[in-house]
């Protein structure tokens, strides 16, 4: 293992999947002590590029040099040997193994017999430096996402990583966690590490990175210093044109109540109460935001509202009617659309084509089906118009959805759900992992639904997004609503406190009553 890492140099790297060029002729250089950002729209090839650097994919052509010597990275082990470590957006911890077993996984210098014993001290020492305080013998799957992420970083450091590739690292972190996370990264950089940061949060790139690489349709479209750049210029670099960053787009007046949730209680998959006594109302023409750190019951709340999880207690009234026991398809028929959190597993069927997924909610009725027969032409033309309208990048309508990038899958799902002009939308993290343009497209779809007189429940971890479009924001913590604030009195600080469970807030929590 070369203990010193001086530079990584990529020359003309290309990679294609079944004839689709995902990364084309990309060259760049990173020196030790640098933090470099990598940005690009969904499907621009960022993940593929990184997987080539870490040995998960073998590039079709191109040269990778470490310290100016040619490096053959054929598999992950080689990447570690050259000091390259990556923390993936979807974590690579085995949930059923303990934290220490995850650390020992594939670590050659650990002992064969009872490997965790020899690693314990080193792990505890390193994790203390990262402010990570976890029981090393607990199953990794039981840790909070933020903790899992730090375990991953400690793991690649213990493997001698000097170039850290981080894919959307802050998407699972609360604002205060994010600050301390970047603090730790800065310390690593001052010790001679390099960081390649992939993020859609451009403000993070601006404050943390000295340089930014822009990937567009698989090509490197720019390599800029971030000096003197602001949000506007960096956004322009990324999407080329168009002004997208906008201010508040909230309308204060709203109509009568459309969704009424009373004392809703439900358990999670493991039988533990996940939401307890949730009560709120959503009006026509209103976006009701629900903030909170992930894992506080948002997932279960969305599932109960969609009708795919049973409520243990409480009531949901939609348009004056009790729908607590109404099934998901019936709810959809009544005009409740859902954008689920896990787009690949809940929102789409990976093995089915883009076209089939586009009509997943309506394939059984006209115009897509007639007396039990699917009408392919209707499906295809609908799918084509959907992909055009929502700028879903796909080789064709017949491509299996699993081959699309996460952002494009999300655009497809959001487009499908919102195209039927629903009267109510339950959106869970609808812009998670999306680039600026795609996120804006989804957001304006939500706004459009609101302007048409529909109600929207927006569950999101992105506070900026919530503040931008919600006329009321509730905060969920450990399955309970900490409080609800009305626009324009929404106080960012209080929300931040509520998100961490602190009630003795600066601003008084507002009553949930609505005019």
């Amino acid at each position, binding site marked *: 293992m070369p203990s010193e890492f001086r530079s990584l140099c990529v020359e003309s790297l290309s990679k294609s*999947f079944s004839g689709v060029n995902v990364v084309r002729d990309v060259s760049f250089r990173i020196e030790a002590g640098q933090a470099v950002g990598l940005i690009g729209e969904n499907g621009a090839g960022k993940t593929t590029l990184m997987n080539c650097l*870490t040995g*998960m*994919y*073998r590039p079709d052509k191109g040269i990778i040099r470490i310290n100016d010597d040619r490096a053959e990275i054929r*598999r*992950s*082990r080689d990447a*570690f040997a050259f000091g390259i470590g*990556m923390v*993936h957006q979807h*974590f*690579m*911890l*085995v*949930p*059923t*193994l303990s934290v220490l*077993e*995850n650390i*020992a*996984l*594939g*670590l*050659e210098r*650990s*002992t*064969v*017999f*009872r*490997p965790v014993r020899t690693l314990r001290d080193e792990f505890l020492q390193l994790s203390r430096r990262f402010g990570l305080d976890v029981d090393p013998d607990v199953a990794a799957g039981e840790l909070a996402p933020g903790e899992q992420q730090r375990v991953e970083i400690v793991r690649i450091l213990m493997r001698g990583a000097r170039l850290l590739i981080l894919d959307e690292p802050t998407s699972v972190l609360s604002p205060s966690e994010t600050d301390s996370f970047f603090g730790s990264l800065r310390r690593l950089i001052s010790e001679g590490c390099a960081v390649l940061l992939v993020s859609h949060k451009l403000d993070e790139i601006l404050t943390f990175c000295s340089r930014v690489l822009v990937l567009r349709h698989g090509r490197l479209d720019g390599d800029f210093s971030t000096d003197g750049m602001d949000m506007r210029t960096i956004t322009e670099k990324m999407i080329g044109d168009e002004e997208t960053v906008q201010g508040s787009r909230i309308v204060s007046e709203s109509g009568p109540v459309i969704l009424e949730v009373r004392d809703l209680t439900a358990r999670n998959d*493991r039988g533990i109460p996940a939401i307890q006594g949730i009560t709120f109302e959503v009006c026509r023409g209103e976006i009701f935001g629900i903030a909170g750190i992930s894992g506080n019951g948002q997932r279960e709340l969305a599932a109960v509202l969609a009708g795919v999880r049973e409520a243990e207690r409480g009531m949901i009234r939609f348009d004056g009617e009790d729908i607590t026991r109404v099934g998901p398809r019936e709810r959809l028929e009544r005009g409740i659309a859902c954008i689920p959190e896990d787009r690949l597993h809940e929102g789409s069927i990976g093995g089915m084509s883009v076209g089939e997924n586009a009509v997943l909610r309506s394939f059984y009725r006209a115009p897509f089906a007639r007396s039990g027969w699917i009408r392919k032409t209707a499906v295809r033309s609908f799918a084509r118009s959907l992909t055009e309208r929502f700028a879903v990048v796909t080789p064709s309508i017949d491509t299996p959805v*699993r*081959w699309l990038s996460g952002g494009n899958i999300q655009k497809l799902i959001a487009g499908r759900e919102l195209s039927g002009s629903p009267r109510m939308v339950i959106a869970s993290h609808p812009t998670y992992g999306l680039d600026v343009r795609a996120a804006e497209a989804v957001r304006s779809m939500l706004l459009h639904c609101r302007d048409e007189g529909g109600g929207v429940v927006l569950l999101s971890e992105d506070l900026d997004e919530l503040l931008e479009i919600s006329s009321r924001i509730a905060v969920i913590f450990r399955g309970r609503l900490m409080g609800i604030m009305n626009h324009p009195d929404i106080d960012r600080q209080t929300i931040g406190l509520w998100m961490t469970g602190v009630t003795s807030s600066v601003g008084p929590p507002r009553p949930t009553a609505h005019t």
Partner: protein
Amino acid sequence: MDHLMIESILTRAVAAATPLLFAATGEIVSERSGVLNLGVEGMMAVGAVTGFAVATATGNLGLAVGAAALAAMAVSAIHGFISVALLGNQVVSGLALTMFGLGLSGLIGKPFIGRSAPVRFMPVDSSILSDLPILGSVMFEQDPLCYLAFGMALLTWVFIYHTRWGISLRAAGEHPLACESMGHSVVLIRWLATLFGGACAGLAGAYLSLAYSASWIEGMTAGRGWIVIALTIFAAWNPLRAAWGACLFGGVYVLQYVLQNKGIAPNILMMLPYVTTLLVLVLGATKRNRRRFNSPVALGEAFHREMR
């Protein structure tokens, strides 16, 4: 029932448990890596006939057992090739393996039908210990293969839970992408686990034809391979649980013979192990047990590094 009777029932139960435990240990390792091999029955049959044939030809038991393991391993390599290398459907491949193995063993075994083995495994002679009451002969009057089976189960348990390789094995079956990203070759791990599973099934077959009944009859595995699949689930992929689970099933086998004297129709008795299997699966599926019985997440799923 006097205690001599109980002693002999228990002793035979442990003997009946031995082939189940051999094969279950192998299947546990295979499934832990993510490879579901439903071909146990077929591999066992090939092991049984090969062991018997080599024992007849050479009169060397060690050679016979080794050949049985190798032959079944070769059959499992077919499964490995289809499911690990070609990313094929593991269920279909495993089922085909059972048919193939049963047919092949029948073909090879034609000349040996009705002959008894010239050599066979005998219970070890440890007169002092086996005179201990009840458990004496249960524990100390078995044949060497039986001890090998229980010893292997113990070692496999240590391997899975207390070694670095065991961590890698579990990771391959739980989260292959994570396993691969940490520098392993999931394909290699799965190949090795599949071959180990095959060898173990071969040992189980050898036990049947060289110790348990010491003869070759076509179809002598009699569904044991399927019981092994159920036992693997019952054991929650833990070899030590498999050890006592195998004894439970072994006891049911012996019960057939005991109850025969009580005037119960033999057809009903022959169903006993399979009824027990169904019962075990039903009980295992109750809500309380569901978590403990969680199978490896990626069990049965093909994996390739660049697959999306």
